[in-house]
């Protein structure tokens, strides 16, 4: 005989405690989940604010107002014959040094940037009449003063900065040079134009190679391929390539493109080819999904009115799948734009101070430029690195935004 089982007494203290415990555990679990999401988002926010905080200063520069008394300066120039050649012969860097010394004191020559003479040159070119006048020009400050003004520099620089600031000579201006110059040795004169152009050329090569090949592969596998061993091998290869670490593609580029085919080192051509191999599987996979989502009724209808199999694909399926393919392509290109490791392997880490003129010239790209600047000892490079990161992130964000827009605008529910 078993004891008769009584109904649970939900009002008893034991049961109340048990339910309270279970609910508390439920709340803890939910809080843990919320905490995980919040932590991840907080990290992202911290990263972005950190970069913004450091990087926005990279777009500005500290300028020192210097009174330039041209008639009294050692400058020998005929106001009526200002040519580029005459300006080049006038030894403007020396003149600038003398002018700054005269205006601010003997130790002031190293307070202005080595590129300050460019301001003088542009001022003379814009208006040769100033050669007979005394004008106030805003010269870019040297790295030490720049750092002291923006953040915290060495004691001497801080002292000099305080003196200049007291005299009301310091202003902050937009550093246009950061967008138009290339790599250099002094943080006040570096810019991202060279790296940006390198990225652009590399991406063009990548797109020109990976898009046609990727789309053709996707069309073949999805529409025409028979189920046989060759198709299986192609599919396995593509899935593997999508999972291979990017640095392995760099090793491939190094040993095949550079050492075997003897293509030019550090060039956008080789960089683009290497990244194209990486991007192609992404485009193939996105393309197959887009083609798969076109309903079979479209194909049947086209075949039914007498289209050939090639016509069905090129006249009907591909145009309908194109938004999906483009979205995948943009996402793949965004990944390639941020890629660094394979490009280091093929020699794109060289110091290159002039923007590349073509796809076979030595070039560098934005992420590699960031990597190179992050290795620099000079403190002035910290804000330049973060500023370059901001530029890169803005481009990635824009590309992903376009991809999302395309998807939302053209996505169809069949």
């Amino acid at each position, binding site marked *: 005989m078993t004891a008769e089982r009584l109904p649970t007494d939900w009002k008893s203290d034991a049961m109340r405690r048990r339910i309270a415990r*279970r609910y508390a*555990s*439920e709340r803890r*679990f*939910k809080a*843990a*989940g*919320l*905490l*995980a*999401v919040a*932590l*991840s*988002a907080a*990290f*992202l926010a911290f*990263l972005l604010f*950190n970069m913004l905080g450091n990087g926005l200063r990279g777009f500005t520069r500290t300028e020192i107002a210097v009174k330039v008394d041209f008639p009294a300066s050692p400058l020998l120039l005929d106001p009526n014959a200002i040519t580029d050649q005459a300006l080049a012969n006038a030894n403007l860097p020396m003149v600038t040094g003398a002018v700054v010394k005269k205006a601010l004191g003997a130790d002031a020559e190293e307070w202005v940037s080595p590129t300050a003479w460019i301001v003088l040159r542009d001022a003379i070119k814009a208006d040769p009449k100033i050669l007979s006048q005394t004008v106030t020009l805003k010269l870019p400050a040297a790295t030490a003063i720049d750092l002291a003004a923006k953040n915290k520099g060495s004691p001497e620089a801080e002292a000099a900065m305080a003196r200049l600031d007291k005299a009301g000579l310091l202003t902050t201006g937009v550093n246009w040079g950061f967008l138009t110059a290339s790599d250099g040795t002094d943080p006040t004169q570096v810019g991202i134009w060279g790296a940006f152009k390198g990225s652009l050329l590399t991406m063009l090569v990548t797109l020109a190679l990976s898009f*046609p*090949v990727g789309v*053709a*592969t996707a069309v*073949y596998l999805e529409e*025409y*391929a028979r189920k046989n061993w060759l198709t299986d*091998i*192609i599919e396995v290869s*593509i899935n*593997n*390539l999508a*999972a*291979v*670490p990017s*640095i*392995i*593609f760099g*090793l*491939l580029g190094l040993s*095949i493109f550079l050492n075997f085919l003897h293509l030019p080192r550090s060039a956008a051509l080789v960089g683009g080819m290497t990244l194209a191999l990486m991007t*192609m*599987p992404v485009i*193939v996979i996105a393309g197959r999904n887009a083609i798969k989502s076109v309903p079979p009724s479209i194909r049947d209808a086209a075949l039914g009115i007498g289209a*050939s*199999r*090639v016509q069905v694909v090129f006249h009907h399926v591909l145009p309908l799948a194109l938004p999906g393919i483009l979205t995948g392509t943009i996402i793949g290109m*965004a990944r390639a734009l*941020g890629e*660094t*490791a394979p490009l*280091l*392997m093929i020699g794109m880490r060289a110091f290159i101070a002039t923007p590349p003129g073509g796809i076979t010239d030595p070039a560098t790209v934005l*992420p590699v430029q960031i*990597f190179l600047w*992050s290795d620099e000892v000079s403190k002035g490079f*910290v804000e330049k690195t*973060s500023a370059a*990161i901001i530029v890169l*992130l803005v481009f*990635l964000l824009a590309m*992903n935004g376009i991809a999302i827009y395309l998807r939302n605008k053209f996505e169809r529910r069949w």
Partner: protein
Amino acid sequence: MTGPAILLLLAGLGAIAWVSARARAMRLQNVARASGRRDAMHSLPGYHGWYVALWTLVPAGLFLAVWANIAPGLITQEVLSSPAAQSLPADDFSRFAILGEARAIATGMQAGAFNPLSQGLVEPYAQAIGKYGFAGAALALVLAFAGGAYAFTRVRPDFRARTRVERLVMATLLIASLLAIITTLGIVASLLWESFRFFTMVSPVDFLFGAKWSPQSAALGYGNDDAFGAVPLFWGTIFIGAIIAMAVAIPLGLMSAIYLTQYASSTVRKWMKPTLEMLAGVPTVVYGYFAALTIAPALRDFAVKIGIHGASSESALAAGLVMGVMIIPFVSSMADDSIAAVPQSMRDGSLAMGATTSETIRRVLIPAALPGVVGGVLLAVSRAIGETMIVVMAAGLAANLTLNPFASVTTVTTQIVQLLTGDQEFDSAKTLAAFALGLVLFIVTLLLNIVALRVVKKYREAYE
């Protein structure tokens, strides 16, 4: 004739071929239609146009591609047999230097000669380049005309131009898809070949099981085989990628996925999911910079404060933490997929029995989704150990076998970058070691992926 000019000319010829063949086919079509036979033409006029244009362009293009590869050799031979070349030095190196300079001057890439010998070769070079350039262009044009004329004669009402054109399209598609195989083969072949050369210098056993890694000393000549023991590298890679990074990514990723799928309102979910996915879109060089500049110094100061010895500013912990954050969206989307794949009836059953939501998740959903989650974690590990920039910038170069997360360790990818940037002597064991490391990395990531995909697939089948 220069390259771009001949290509332009060919393109023009192709266009003319397309237009004229299409016009001819149209005329034939009109004649056929006038006689009341609507089905007389097999293909549309456009296909006839394409057929003739392709016959014009493809043979000439193929010929030019071959010619571009053999012409430089022919030109060099021609120059070497010229009287001016008799005075060249006998050793290959200086001879090719002079030849290269003469070629640069002859093609206008260089203004003047450094070596007086090359000045004398400029004239023969220019002549040879002109001669072979003209011959190539002439042959290509002849081929284009011959191909176009042959195809043009075949434009007839019953000619199946469409079938031919479509066959070529299909062949192009097939060749494009074969590129994936060629790439895979290229990776495997280059890794295997360079690793084979490495293993003729260093025994594979020493490489795989040796505990001392210092390739610099081997390159300087006073090292021995022991310097290529890769165990510290493997340990560093596992320590950072599979232990520290996963200790961050698995709890955060899994809990995020659970919260967003099971608890969050649809508005929160709509905004937070793309936000978390942004973590995967940030370039790795940015993470590396962040780890090296912000996280690592903070961790070192913390370690010094609590009195840990051997704290380095390039710590395993800094690299691992940041890498873990990068992997969060990866783990979370895999977990999301596998939890969504658990049949609704199982969750409803559990809730109907009176279980709370968290009890349902912990006792029913996660056990049922476990194979999928494990597969996702394996994929994440394979992603983490192949990651390069974060560890290059934040993890350091010292090959330590240590359990201290505040110490500096090095990884396989860091060493590959380190060995291959700098001098490029392609015969030293130092550079070839990078390919051996690459081979190990390739094999391990491949195995992880295969196992992971198999686990995920098997589990999906279980509920279908």
